[in-house]
C-alpha cells in the first residue's frame, strides 16, 4: 500500500514552525516510515507541485505571487493544515496592515521599486479553504505529531482552544498576574504551549492567539487596572496575532478610544 504523502510549504515566515518538525528527533524517523514527504525544501525534498494527502503550510500571504502558489497547493492537496501564527492569522508581519506599507518601504529601502510586497500580510484562510489550524509562534513538536497522527487515523485532531490558565493551574504554576501584577494574556490566550512563559515566571504574550470565548474587553480593563496606559494595552493585543479577529477588534477598540 502506498504511504500517505505530505508536502511542507513555506510562505512569509521565519521557518521556526518547520523546525518543530525538523527538531522532532527520533519521531521524525517514525514519521518518514509512515508518510512520504514529497516536498519540504528546508529538509531537502523538492517537488512543489506534487499532489499530496496533507499539505502543511507555514507563513502568510505577503507577496504578489503567493496567491497563485497557494491556489495550486490547495488544488493539489486533500487536507490543508496551517502551522503557526503567520499562516493562521497573518503573523507578526501583519502589524504592517495598520501602517502605510508603501511609505515604510520608501523610508527603508534605497531602491523601493525592487520590493514586491502586498500592503497587507494575510492568513492562508483568507484565500483558500483551510482544513485545520495549529496556532502558536512557533508551534511545537507535540502539536504537529498529534495533528498528523489524527489525520493518519482518519479523524480530525481535537482542537486545543482552552485558556492558558487551565494548563497553568494543572502544572501548579503560581499566577504571575495575581502575585506579581504581570500583564499576563493567559486568560484570553489559547493553550497548547504548555503554559511555557508563566512556568518561568513571566507573563503570557498571547503567541498562541485567542482562546475560545475570550473576554478581551474584561482583559483590557484589567490590564489598565494594572497600570498599563491604553497604548500599552492595545499593543498586548496587536502583537504576534494582531490580525486574529478577537485580538484585532479589541486592539482597535482601545486605539479608537484613545
Amino acid at each position, binding site marked *: 500500500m502506498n504511504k500517505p504523502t505530505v508536502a511542507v510549504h513555506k510562505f512569509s515566515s521565519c521557518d521556526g514552525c518547520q523546525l518543530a518538525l525538523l527538531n522532532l528527533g527520533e519521531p521524525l524517523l*517514525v514519521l518518514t516510515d*509512515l508518510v512520504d514527504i514529497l516536498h519540504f525544501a528546508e529538509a531537502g525534498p523538492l517537488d512543489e507541485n506534487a499532489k499530496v494527502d496533507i499539505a502543511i503550510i507555514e507563513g502568510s500571504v505577503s507577496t504578489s505571487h503567493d496567491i497563485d502558489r497557494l491556489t495550486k497547493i490547495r488544488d493539489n492537496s486533500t487536507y490543508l493544515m496551517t502551522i503557526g501564527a503567520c499562516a493562521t492569522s497573518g503573523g507578526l508581519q501583519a502589524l504592517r496592515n495598520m501602517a502605510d506599507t508603501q511609505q515604510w518601504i520608501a523610508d527603508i529601502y534605497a531602491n523601493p521599486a525592487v520590493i514586491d510586497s502586498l500592503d497587507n500580510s494575510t492568513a492562508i484562510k483568507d484565500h483558500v479553504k483551510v482544513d485545520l489550524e495549529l496556532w502558536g509562534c512557533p508551534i511545537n513538536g507535540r502539536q504537529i505529531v498529534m495533528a498528523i497522527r489524527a489525520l493518519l487515523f482518519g479523524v480530525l485532531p481535537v482542537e486545543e482552544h482552552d485558556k492558558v*490558565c487551565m494548563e497553568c493551574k*494543572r*502544572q501548579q504554576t503560581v499566577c504571575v498576574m495575581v502575585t506579581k501584577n504581570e500583564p499576563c494574556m493567559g486568560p484570553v490566550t489559547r493553550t497548547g504551549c504548555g503554559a511555557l512563559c508563566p512556568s518561568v515566571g513571566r507573563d503570557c504574550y498571547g503567541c498562541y492567539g485567542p482562546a475560545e*470565548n475570550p*473576554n478581551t474587553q*474584561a482583559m483590557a*480593563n484589567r490590564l489598565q487596572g494594572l497600570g498599563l496606559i491604553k497604548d500599552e494595552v492595545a499593543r498586548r493585543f496587536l502583537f504576534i496575532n494582531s490580525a486574529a479577529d478577537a485580538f484585532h477588534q479589541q486592539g482597535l477598540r482601545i486605539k479608537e478610544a484613545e
Partner: protein
Amino acid sequence: MKPGYYFQSDLLQLLLDNLLRDGYTCIGPQVRDGAIIFDRITSVAQLPHGVSDEQAPGSYSLNHSTTSKYFDWANGPQAIKPLLFAPREKLWQSAQSVDGQISFKTSEPDLKPMAVIGARACDIAAMKIQDQHFLQQQFVDPYYRARRENLLIIAVNCARPADTCFCHSTGDGPFVDDSVDSNGADIVLTELQDGFLIEAHSNQGKKILKGLPLHDSTKQHLEESESIKSGASKQNRQLPKFDIKSRLFNELNDEAWHAIATKCLSCGNCTSVCPTCFCHSENDVPELDGKTSSHYREWDSCFSQGHSYIHGITIRSETSQRYRQWLTHKFASWFDQYGRSGCVGCGRCITWCPVGIDVTESLAHFEERRRD
C-alpha cells in the same frame, strides 16, 4: 477546648524526622514564586517562618510577619486537592499487537505513604467533600482511594485569616472540627507564641504522638488557643444568610448573570483553585506510530467550552451560562448531591480570579434583589 498536649516549637523538626523515618514523603508549605505552595519538605527551615500572606480580590502577596510563627498565613493557591485528585494522570494504556489485537493496561495507583503538614480546616472540610465524590458513590475511584488511604494529615488551625476568607460563615473553620475520628485530619496543631498544642484525631495520629516528648497543656495554653480561635473567626467576608439554593434556582434568568459575565474571563482559575471542584476531562494521546495510546484524565472546568459540548452542540457557549452553572452547582444542586454546599469558605476563588470577582458579592446580589 479539651485539655491536651503541648510541645515546644523547636521539636517540630523531630516530628518531621519521625515521619521521614517511618517512610512518609512529607509535603509542607513553603514560599515559592511569591506564594505559599505545598511541596516536599525535609526540614523545618523550608517552612514559611515569619511570613504572612495578604490577600484581596485578584491579589496575593507575602510579607514579613509580626510574629516568628511558622503558620502565620491563611492559605496558598492549593493544598490537599492536587495530592489526591491529580491535575493530570494516565488511567490506562492501549496497545495493538502485530495481529491487530488491542490490549488495555490499567495504570497502577501510586501507593507511597505521604504526610501533608499545614493543611487548614477549610482544606479538611473540602477533602471530606471530595471523599464523598470519589469514594462514597457507586463507583469508587481507585487512584483517589490509593492516595487517600496513604495520606496522613497534620492540620494546623488558622490564626490569621486573609481578607478573602469566610470559612466561619460556612461552618468549616477557622479551627478543624475537633471531633476525634471524623475521618479528616490525623493530627491537629494549634500554633501558640512559643509552641504548639497537639491533638491526635485518629489512631495513626496517636501513634505518631507517642514518638514525641509532650507536656500536658496548661490553662494558659488553652486560653491562648481560645483567643486565637475567636480572633480568627472575625472575618471580613461571609456568605449571605438567605436560602441561597432556592434563590439561585428561582433567578436563572436574572440580569445579574449577564452583568457578571461582562467582567468574567471564563478562564477557569476559580474552579482550578477551588478545593472541592472535581470536574475533569479525558483525552487520548496516541504515539506517532499508532500502535500504543495513553488515556489521560485532567482537571477541567465548567468555564471551558468542552465541559458542555455534547455531540456537536455546546450547551453553555456564553460566559453568563458558565458562571451560572458554577454557582448553581456549588451553592444549590450540590445539596442534592452531597447534602451540603460545595463551598468551604477558603476564599481562593476570590483571590486567584485575575479580575477579582468576589463570590460572596455575586451571591449577595440576589439578596438585594429580594429586597427590591
